[in-house]
């Protein structure tokens, strides 16, 4: 087994030894015992020995108590046991035989798993001695914790622990060979050299080990004192001294007591030792008692993973959510075995080095009633690192995942993590994400998450909850009607608000007024009638068609999405600045507003699916309608549930409008969506409605704006550069008022050129591309829309049906122009 000794190069980040303990870096077993809390981190060797001895005694006692063999007569019971109770056929649960049989059943389960453990390292793991130890440890632990029982995967957690202890012992024997004299039994300080000759002879043999002075003094019989040795070697010697504290039981690196030590490590790992991450939780199938979410812990932890992923790689996240890949499909295995099945044994040891070196104490108390929903997994440094590691693994596969079309192929890639990886990079990324994870668990964003969670909780089945909640700003997973209805209602209220505020506006384009009036009218009408539900249903039919097309689109726009979404959560993570700023700006309002209206109308037509797509494009911070006024408020609001819902609602509504009456059109011209282009596309899709006519007018205006935007590349707005995408309103962004800004924003559009960096150019190009696709989608759907128009029961419908066709076509043409323009850029 010497070939498996841990002598491989350690990545720079591993081998962390806390400052206070002596150089145990190379003694993984010892280091892990300290990290897991079994051994005290203090540096005194004696302390270590004592604690080791105690833990071993405990284990021995446990073994005696629980491993029952009814064949062997118990000591001390000279009189024969009560055979009526204690016979093998007895059904009395107290009889030793019953316990024996229960143990036998448990053992059978354990054996099934053990026989398949680490077949690639079978020279160690499949030896009967090792298997026996593993079996006993698992049995005893499960008997000690009957509430957990034995679950598949526990053996995989235990195996590396035993392995590192074995490696330590090997190292010890190596050292022993090299420094033979140090290991001579020094009873009371007097060395017993019975075989003086052979000892010295062996000593000479290893004289050329250049490591330290002992080797260099090959020929002399001088015995070096302990202090002159390398501190590490010194530690090893002291730890294995048979006459140190606690005698043999205290030999910290001992082969005899490997089982005991492994049990203690396993126990500490599973129970979590007063920490936040307890592996045993991951094996439980029922929700934990104090769980806020009412989900089994492993599901909750998987949701935490997706939450973290949504922060850092939102395009990938939305893609996965769209495909319906629930995190627990792959995360279950990752979490339960702490990545044991994904990496080779050596790599796994490095990863576990990192994970164990993190502190496991809970960072803040999880309170039941708070509106601050935090993930238990992210509640400690160790848990955060675990989550970060998982997310960095997902991100590692990013390109191949984004390329997949189906959930199964996605899962295939996730479950077959590639063999040859750059572990160092993976670990570094994980560390950087860990900080992020810890932060995100504390920010108010989590309350947004929690809020969304709470309100949808009742409606969603639990496995769906994580996927829904994970991205507060994107609702891309197929949701039941009730969710849409709810969103619509929230949006509806927001629209009203906006409507009131926008009533004072002086929209520049003339059509806007008409539109606004119409919208007002529509809104008041729709308030009373339950038509939204119908419309939603109407749209459902077209979902599937659009969905596939949009999926491709979403991939293309992944870049923008990332930027946009990133901005929403962490400004620092933005890849694309303009999305960030979107929130901040309010000034593009005027243009935005007008554009908004057109957008709204256009969007109204598109189906919900399109809406979904677009919502992903919208920078999260749904642009403050009003521009400027409540930018900050908007930001925070965005993180709030309501805003999220309303934003999404807005999007939805806009899209639904084709079927809906034009009333639905989200008013607020103020609404600015950071991704105007996609929206324009969707808007182009709008079917026959009166708005179409206005739309064409607006498009012209928008088109002009787009042009001017191109020229404005160099302009920079202080801080807010979202203009990169012409302030496109996304329609109904919650909150706000845009009124004031509309007027002021008119002159702005041109002046505000925003910073058109290279980035933006690129993104605009992409947008143009996306627009083209959208147009295609819209056109294809347009046919369907027409059929659905008839379902509208709004007044406008009657009027608009006829005219809609023409306006729609013109709008599409305009869209094409815009897209060409952009692609030229």
């Amino acid at each position, binding site marked *: 087994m010497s070939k498996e000794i841990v002598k491989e190069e350690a990545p720079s980040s591993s081998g962390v030894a806390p400052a206070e303990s002596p150089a145990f870096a190379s003694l993984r077993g010892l280091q892990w015992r300290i990290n897991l809390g079994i051994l005290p981190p203090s540096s005194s060797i004696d302390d270590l020995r004592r604690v080791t001895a105690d833990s071993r005694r405990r284990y021995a006692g446990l073994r005696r108590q629980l491993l029952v063999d009814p*064949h062997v007569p118990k000591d001390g019971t000279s009189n*024969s046991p009560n*055979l*009526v109770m204690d*016979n*093998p*056929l*007895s*059904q009395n649960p107290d009889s030793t035989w019953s316990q024996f*049989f229960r143990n036998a059943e448990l053992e059978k389960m354990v054996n099934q798993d053990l026989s398949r453990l680490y077949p690639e390292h079978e020279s160690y793991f499949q030896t009967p001695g090792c298997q026996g130890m593993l079996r006993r440890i698992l049995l005893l632990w499960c008997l000690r914790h009957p509430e957990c029982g034995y679950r598949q995967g526990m053996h995989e957690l235990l195996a590396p622990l035993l392995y590192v202890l074995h490696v330590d012992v090997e190292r010890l024997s190596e050292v022993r060979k090299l420094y033979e004299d140090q290991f001579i039994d020094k009873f009371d300080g007097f060395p017993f050299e019975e075989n003086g000759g052979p000892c010295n002879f062996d000593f000479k043999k290893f004289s050329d080990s250049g490591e330290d002075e002992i080797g260099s003094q090959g020929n002399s019989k001088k015995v070096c004192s302990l202090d002159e040795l390398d501190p590490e070697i010194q530690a090893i010697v002291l730890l294995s001294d048979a006459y140190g504290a606690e005698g043999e039981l205290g030999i910290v690196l001992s082969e005899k007591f490997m089982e005991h030590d492994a049990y203690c490590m396993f126990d500490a790992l599973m129970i979590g030792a007063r920490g936040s991450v307890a592996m045993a939780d991951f094996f439980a199938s029922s929700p934990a008692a104090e769980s806020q979410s009412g989900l089994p812990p492993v599901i909750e932890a998987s949701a935490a993973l997706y939450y973290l992923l949504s922060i850092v790689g939102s395009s990938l996240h939305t893609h996965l959510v769209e495909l319906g890949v629930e995190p627990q499909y792959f995360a279950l295995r990752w979490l339960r075995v702490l990545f044991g099945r994904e990496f080779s044994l050596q790599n796994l040891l490095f990863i576990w080095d990192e994970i164990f070196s993190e502190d496991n104490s809970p960072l803040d108390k999880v309170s039941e009633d708070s509106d601050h929903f935090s993930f238990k997994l992210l509640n400690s440094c160790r848990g955060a690192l675990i989550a970060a590691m998982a997310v960095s693994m997902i991100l590692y596969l990013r390109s191949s995942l984004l390329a997949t079309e189906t959930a199964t192929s996605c899962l295939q890639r996730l479950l077959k993590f590639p063999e040859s990886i750059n572990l160092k990079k993976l670990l570094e990324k994980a560390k950087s994400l860990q900080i992020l994870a810890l932060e995100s668990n504390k920010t108010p964003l989590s309350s947004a998450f929690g809020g969304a969670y709470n309100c949808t909780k009742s409606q969603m089945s639990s496995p769906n909850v994580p996927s829904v909640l994970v991205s507060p700003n994107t609702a891309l997973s197929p949701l039941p009607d009730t969710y849409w209805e709810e969103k619509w209602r929230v949006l509806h209220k927001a629209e009203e608000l906006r409507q009131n505020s926008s009533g004072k506006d002086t929209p520049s384009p003339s059509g806007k007024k008409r539109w606004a009036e119409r919208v007002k009218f529509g809104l008041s009408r729709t308030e009373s009638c339950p038509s939204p539900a119908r419309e939603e249903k109407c749209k459902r039919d077209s979902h599937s068609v659009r969905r596939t097309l949009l999926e491709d689109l979403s991939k293309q726009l992944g870049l923008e999405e990332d930027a946009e979404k990133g901005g929403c959560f962490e400004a620092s993570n933005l890849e694309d600045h303009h999305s960030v700023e979107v929130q901040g700006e309010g000034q593009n309002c005027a243009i935005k507003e007008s554009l908004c209206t057109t957008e709204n109308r256009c969007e109204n037509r598109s189906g919900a699916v399109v809406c979904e797509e677009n919502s992903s494009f919208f920078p999260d911070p749904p642009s403050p309608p009003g521009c400027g006024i409540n930018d900050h408020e908007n930001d925070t609001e965005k993180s709030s549930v309501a805003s999220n819902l309303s934003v999404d609602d807005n999007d939805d509504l806009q899209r639904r409008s084709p079927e809906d009456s034009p009333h639905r059109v989200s008013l607020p011209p103020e609404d600015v969506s950071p991704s105007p282009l996609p929206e324009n596309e969707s808007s182009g899709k709008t079917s026959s409605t009166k708005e179409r006519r206005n739309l064409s007018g607006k498009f012209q205006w928008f088109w002009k704006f787009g042009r001017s935007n191109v020229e404005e590349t160099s302009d920079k707005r202080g801080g807010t550069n979202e203009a990169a995408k012409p302030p496109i309103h996304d329609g109904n962004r919650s909150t706000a008022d845009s009124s004031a800004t509309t007027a002021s924003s008119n002159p702005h559009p041109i002046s505000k050129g925003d910073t058109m960096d290279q980035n933006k150019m690129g993104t605009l190009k992409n947008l143009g591309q996306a627009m083209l696709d959208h147009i295609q989608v819209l056109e294809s759907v347009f046919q369907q829309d027409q059929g659905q128009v008839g379902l509208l029961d709004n007044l406008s419908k009657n009027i608009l049906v006829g005219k809609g066709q023409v306006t729609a076509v013109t709008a599409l043409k305009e869209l094409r122009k815009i897209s060409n323009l952009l692609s030229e850029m």
Partner: protein
Amino acid sequence: MLVPGKIQHIICTGNLCIKEVQDYLKTLCPDLHITRGEYDEETRYPETKTLTIGQFKLGLCHGHQVIPWGDLDSLAMLQRQLDVDILVTGHTHQFTAYKHEGGVVINPGSATGAYSSITYDVNPSFVLMDIDGLRVVVYVYELIDGEVKVDKIDFKKTTTATHSAH
């Protein structure tokens, strides 16, 4: 007490008489060994049977063929003939267990307490053997006066004769 799943083999000396009893025993354990008794309707049971469980060789015979019925020496002859460590016979409807010449002769008695022309006062009884390596522990379950009484006997397979721990 006799529930399925706990017993791995059933050895039956015979006189089940009807198939239903065999089916019932089958439900307790699929591995069933029966030899023919004089009242068995099933004619295809063998007269004697030998099998190996663990380290022990077991021999099975109803016992009405061995005359005098229940005589230890005659049964020992049969044991030598079959070359088994443990010989299980019946017919006498009475539980006996002897350690004899390095082997064990067990008579589990009648499981139903059926009438016997040679024994008075038949108590239903059966025997459970726990074979563990070179050691067999014999549990005797007897129904006496409506109560189940259990007794235990230890046998070790050695070349030298040892006392039965009865």
